């Protein structure tokens, strides 16, 4: 188990390193950051001096090594735009995004897993069909559009919920739904498919042949096995969600990391964008890593190997 964790950790680090390099080189091509720093009224000399000041005239690999070295110490440089340390900026905004992500995944799990289980218990029933349609429709719904519709209905027409901001739990309801519903279909399908597969497994028949009551068969014997892949998927989705929070945060004016990313792209604020890509990637990597470890722990076949 320890061996597994260590190997998995090594892989995670390698992935993180590669992502950081890709994101760095991608944005390296982005054009001249000096102009972004200099602002609207700078002249050519200003820009040249900024270029030298920040070391933009050095070769890319040198700049990358420099950046990476600093990044390892949680120093992602200064935001060109805010003139503040990127790390502080992101740290401050992450809480909103994390809250949103956690709420989103919980929303998805708490709706999708029961639905998937019910659908699997009664395949081809009305509930199953409804759940299936919901999942297809859910995946087809553009989240920006869904968000706008929710605002029109619940904030404007009904006035039940606030349209923007993050100052109370009500503010998180609509963003949570918009962010969470996108992960729902996948989780629901996997739960359903997993349950269906497990329910047709021989050991479920064994449990019934023992005289176990149906509830025990479903929850103790079936769900326990079906839930294992759902854990990984939820982690993957959580990683995606944080990256997908850009759209949601921009619609609901939540000042989270996603919104910061969008604005920073617009402002050519490269250190911030670079750091954010890395941070989002790290989240994905950490979540999948944790999920794998949790999986290994949940699944005795992996635990004991």
């Amino acid at each position, binding site marked *: 188990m320890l*061996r597994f964790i260590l190997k998995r950790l090594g892989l995670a680090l390698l992935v993180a390193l590669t992502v950081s390099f890709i994101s760095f080189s991608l944005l390296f091509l982005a054009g001249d950051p000096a102009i972004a720093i200099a602002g609207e009224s700078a002249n050519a000399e200003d820009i040249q001096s900024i270029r030298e000041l920040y070391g933009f005239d050095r070769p890319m690999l040198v700049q990358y090594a420099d950046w990476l070295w600093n990044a390892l110490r949680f120093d992602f440089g200064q935001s060109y735009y805010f003139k503040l340390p990127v790390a502080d900026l992101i740290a401050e905004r992450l809480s909103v995004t994390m809250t949103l992500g956690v709420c989103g995944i919980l929303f998805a799990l708490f709706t999708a897993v029961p639905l998937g289980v019910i659908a699997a218990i009664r395949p081809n029933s009305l509930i199953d069909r409804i759940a299936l349609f919901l999942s297809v429709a859910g995946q087809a719904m553009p989240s920006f559009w869904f968000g706008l519709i929710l605002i029109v209905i619940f904030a404007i027409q009904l006035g039940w919920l606030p349209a923007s901001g993050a100052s109370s739990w009500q503010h998180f309801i609509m963003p949570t739904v918009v962010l969470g519903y996108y992960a729902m279909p996948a989780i629901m399908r996997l739960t359903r498919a997993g349950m269906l597969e497990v329910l047709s497994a021989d050991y479920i028949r064994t449990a019934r042949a023992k005289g176990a009551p149906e509830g025990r068969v479903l929850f103790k014997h079936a769900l326990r096995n079906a839930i294992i892949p759902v854990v990984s998927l939820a982690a993957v989705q959580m990683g995606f969600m944080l990256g997908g929070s850009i759209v949601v945060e921009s619609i609901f004016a939540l000042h989270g990391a996603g919104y910061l990313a969008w604005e920073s792209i617009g402002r050519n604020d490269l250190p911030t964008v670079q750091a954010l890509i890395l941070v989002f990637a790290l989240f994905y990597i950490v979540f999948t890593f944790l999920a794998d470890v949790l999986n290994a722990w949940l699944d005795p076949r992996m635990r004991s*190997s």
Partner: protein
Amino acid sequence: MTDNPVLELKNVSKTYTVKQGLFGKPRPLRAINDVSLKLGRGEVLGLVGESGCGKSTLAKILLGLEAPTEGQVLVDGQTLAGQDRIALSRRIQPIFQDPYSSLNPRKSIEDIVSLPLRVHQIGDSASRQKKVREMLDIVGLPVRVARSYPNQMSGGQRQRVAIARALIMNPEIVICDEPTSALDVSVQSQILNLLGDLRQEFGLTYLFISHNLAVVEHLATRVAVMYLGRIVEEAGVARLFEEARHPYSRALLESVLTPDPGLGVPDTQLGAAYPNPISPPSGCAFHPRCAKVMPHCSQIAPTPIATPDGHVECHLYDDTPARAAS
């Protein structure tokens, strides 16, 4: 024994590295352990042994699907590695166990059977078609199946298709890896009859792998018994079935349940400990299950002892280690 073997294995070993679990440590697994075998022209060599003992691995090596880690495979006295794989595949053809997975479900029967011809660029399409029809007839399939797909056929019919494909190149050697174990007995007998007929008609040489001793007895001329990657006993079929020497061979024979009511279930006197191929027992790999185990069996690995028509690998038949131990 054959002096002029068409196929010969010399000290062949095959080691896989297997990982246990997703990230477990890779460990070596000796699927085949220093095996030597000879196969004479027109012979049927039955290969028996329990699941995981290395039968299929041996078949794959003979088919050139896997390279042996050590040792040589000789075809007509020439090493297999040196020969052109394409040329070789004209002479050795396979029939696999599972007729459901051995045919490409996306191809018509005609495509499947003619594939060897096309690969080896033999004949034009008309002559190939003719040949396919002939072949289908030989294996007892109506010609109209040529346009069908595997999923439209029963298991027995599919196995016939597989046989047709194997024989269309007029091979000398056919490697049959449990060709009937997925079939019902009523179909099994058809396929066994067919294999027997074809052998006579075309003078084929078979390596016939099976775990069903009754089937082996019926078809084979010689039998090799495999245990954990080694051939522990090899003998002519009559000899083996009359007086098997190795305790494992005997246990195998005793386990055969003939349809004789009233005889009851035999006691094989085998231990239940199932060997793990990754960490095989020391000395004689069979010793933990052996009814006649002797003290030195767990320390010294037996070596082959020649018998009139083969060999056996058991300390019961060589007294050197016993003497050495005492």
